[in-house]
């Protein structure tokens, strides 16, 4: 024993250094091998997402899941370190830690050895181009390095992209090989441009460009839904994606909010007579642009349709979503305001995008709005066609928080509205009075609420909530065009009256 301990003492310093190194290596080992991602199988009828695992430096897929995705495994025999699978009248045999795969009587070499992890046989991606086409007797389109495969009669669309500079922004042009349908969403300060449900294979794995407004464009279909993720370089840009008549060319402009106001052309022809007493029965078409300038001297009204994108807001029992209802109502109010010829209008959101509350306030401030109105719908009890107008409830704690801090050079972002509260309350009173003229509507007295959205708006700012939009209530009355046109006309009358009219 002493013979054994003696050398141990002599080399204790070496051991002392070696042990922590090995310990650290073991600590980081699982994190590296358990890193996972997704791989998408596009089949003629559906797309399937399988987990992709990185073992060592290579990417692997679980073999049985792959085979069950593309067809049906007819039988299998699992031995200690080998697997035999019967699939489509063929037989394949794999061995753990062996590159060689036996396909019927043929031997095929994979780029990396087969691995077994958590009892699953894992094959390298190279399996998809060497063995899979022979197994399934169908055409397989797989580009090495990509994370998607197209099997059978699936013809992926593709696209080219171009970035141009325009005054106060950039224009992204995407030309697709097939017709597509786009949808946009916003999350974590990024824009997501969904490219429909058909499979898409981008020409490039990575988009290289230099642009002052856009830092990154990334194609992603990791959840089986192809989309482009655009990362802007600065906050507060507006995103205006449009698709042309052919359905193949998407142009998306990224513009500074302030610039957008000045750059817009004259308003579109009015859909109804100015200040029409008889409301139009047809809902106006949704606006194509966020801003409409109808003469630079006219007062600016910023309209905000609540929610949008992945934030649907409240839901009605009939499946009506607050975000859609608000977009419809705002489009109608916008048309009526423009038709009056007395106001300029800017919308905070165009299309189905989710902007942050600060982005909405920033749009109003950049447009130098005289009035900001945000529209919401929610649970207002069992009686429907109710309208409530809110102004900001001044914070009551700490005691100084409710005072307007306008004496200094800078006003804290979260307290901007406090200096406008008197104007906001005046506007709320006038709006409430005008809303009571809408037939069939119940209008509550103006209320206050701790509304996060209004806190930073540097204009007379109110929130209009209509209801009831809730699962247990029939909300169809809220989509009634007479009710919506009544709101739009009441807003025009209220603005005419507010602070002595538009001038």
């Amino acid at each position: 024993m002493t013979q054994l301990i003696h050398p141990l003492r002599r080399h204790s310093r070496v051991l002392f250094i070696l042990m922590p190194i090995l310990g650290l290596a073991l600590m980081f080992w699982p994190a590296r091998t358990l890193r996972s991602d997704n791989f998408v199988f596009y089949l003629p009828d559906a797309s399937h997402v399988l987990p992709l695992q990185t073992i060592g430096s290579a990417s692997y897929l679980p073999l049985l899941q792959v085979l069950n995705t593309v067809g049906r495994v007819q039988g299998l025999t699992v031995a200690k370190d080998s697997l035999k699978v019967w699939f489509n009248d063929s037989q394949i045999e794999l061995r753990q830690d062996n590159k060689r795969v036996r396909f019927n009587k043929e031997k095929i070499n994979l780029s990396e050895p087969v691995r077994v992890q958590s009892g699953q046989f894992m094959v390298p991606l190279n399996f998809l181009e060497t063995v899979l086409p022979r197994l399934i007797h169908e055409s397989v389109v797989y580009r090495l390095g990509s994370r998607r495969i197209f099997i059978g009669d699936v013809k992926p669309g593709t696209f080219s992209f171009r970035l141009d500079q325009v005054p106060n922004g950039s224009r992204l042009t995407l030309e697709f090989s097939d017709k597509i349908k786009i949808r946009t969403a916003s999350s974590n300060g990024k824009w997501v441009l969904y490219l429909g449900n058909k499979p898409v294979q981008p020409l490039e794995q990575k988009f290289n460009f230099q642009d002052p407004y856009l830092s990154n464009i990334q194609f992603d279909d990791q959840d089986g839904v192809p989309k482009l993720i655009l990362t802007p370089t600065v906050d507060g840009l507006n995103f205006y994606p449009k698709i042309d008549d052919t359905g193949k060319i998407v142009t998306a402009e990224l513009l500074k909010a302030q610039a957008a106001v000045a750059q817009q052309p004259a308003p579109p022809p009015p859909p109804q007579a100015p200040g029409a007493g008889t409301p139009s029965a047809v809902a106006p078409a949704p606006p194509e642009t966020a801003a409409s300038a109808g003469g630079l001297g006219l007062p600016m009204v910023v309209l905000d349709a609540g929610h949008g994108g992945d934030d649907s807001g409240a839901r009605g029992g009939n499946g009506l979503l607050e975000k859609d209802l608000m977009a419809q109502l705002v489009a109608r109010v916008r048309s009526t305001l423009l038709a009056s010829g007395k106001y300029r209008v800017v919308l905070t959101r165009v299309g189905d995008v989710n902007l942050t509350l600060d982005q909405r306030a920033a749009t109003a401030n950049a447009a130098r709005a005289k009035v900001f109105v945000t529209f919401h719908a929610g649970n207002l009890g069992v009686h429907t066609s109710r309208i409530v107008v809110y102004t900001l409830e001044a914070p009551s704690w700490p005691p100084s928080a409710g005072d307007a801090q306008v004496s200094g050079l800078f006003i804290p972002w979260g307290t901007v509205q406090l200096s406008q509260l008197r104007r906001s309350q005046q506007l709320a009173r006038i709006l409430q009075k005008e809303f009571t003229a809408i037939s069939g509507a119940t209008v509550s007295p103006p209320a206050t609420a701790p509304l996060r959205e209004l806190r930073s708006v540097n204009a007379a700012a109110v929130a209009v909530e209509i209801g009831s939009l809730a699962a247990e209530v029939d909300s169809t009355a809220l989509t009634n065009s007479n009710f919506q046109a009544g709101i739009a006309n009441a807003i025009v009358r209220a603005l005419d009256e507010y602070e002595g009219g538009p001038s």
Partner: protein
Amino acid sequence: MTRRAGMIAIALLLVILGGGFVYLRVLTRRAKLESPEHGEEGARTQLREAALQSNTGALQTITLYFPSDDDGQLQSESRQIAWATSDTDRIRQVMLALIEGSYKGLRRPLPPTTELRAVFLTPDGTAYLDFSSNALAVFAPGIQSETLAIYSIVNSLAANIPSVLRVKILVQGQEVETLNGHADLGEIFVPDLTRNQPASP
């Protein structure tokens, strides 16, 4: 076996044992970190236990404020409960009663699945309520519903526990922007008695 071979064998054995020990420690720590449900479940159980244990006090009539269905105000409702002795337990009792809902058919201020993870009461009278995020995810969004939910909590707590002067709402231990898209949770709320409907004679 030569002396040199023996030495190497022992060194390797020690290295493997040492590495394995460190690895096991890391795994245990990771397992602890990666089971928030267990932690939350524990917190919930503790909360319920505390509320139950404290249900040994004298009976007390408390006043709860629930959103009334139509006028956007809060309506009072009295309830007798075995009043706990400590203020934080009393806060939990009032919150559990609000989550349980009205006996008179008034609107629920919070979903029945609402979980209160923790309660703190600072010496200056600020009650911190930490809610679990999964319950608030099913909270019906709306300006009125969120505003009334907040003041239902604040007014009910202040009406029954004099040491509660104001309320700060947290979600998963963090300050969040809004309750569900509207009401500003960056604020500390003081009771607003104008939101209580005058009691009917």
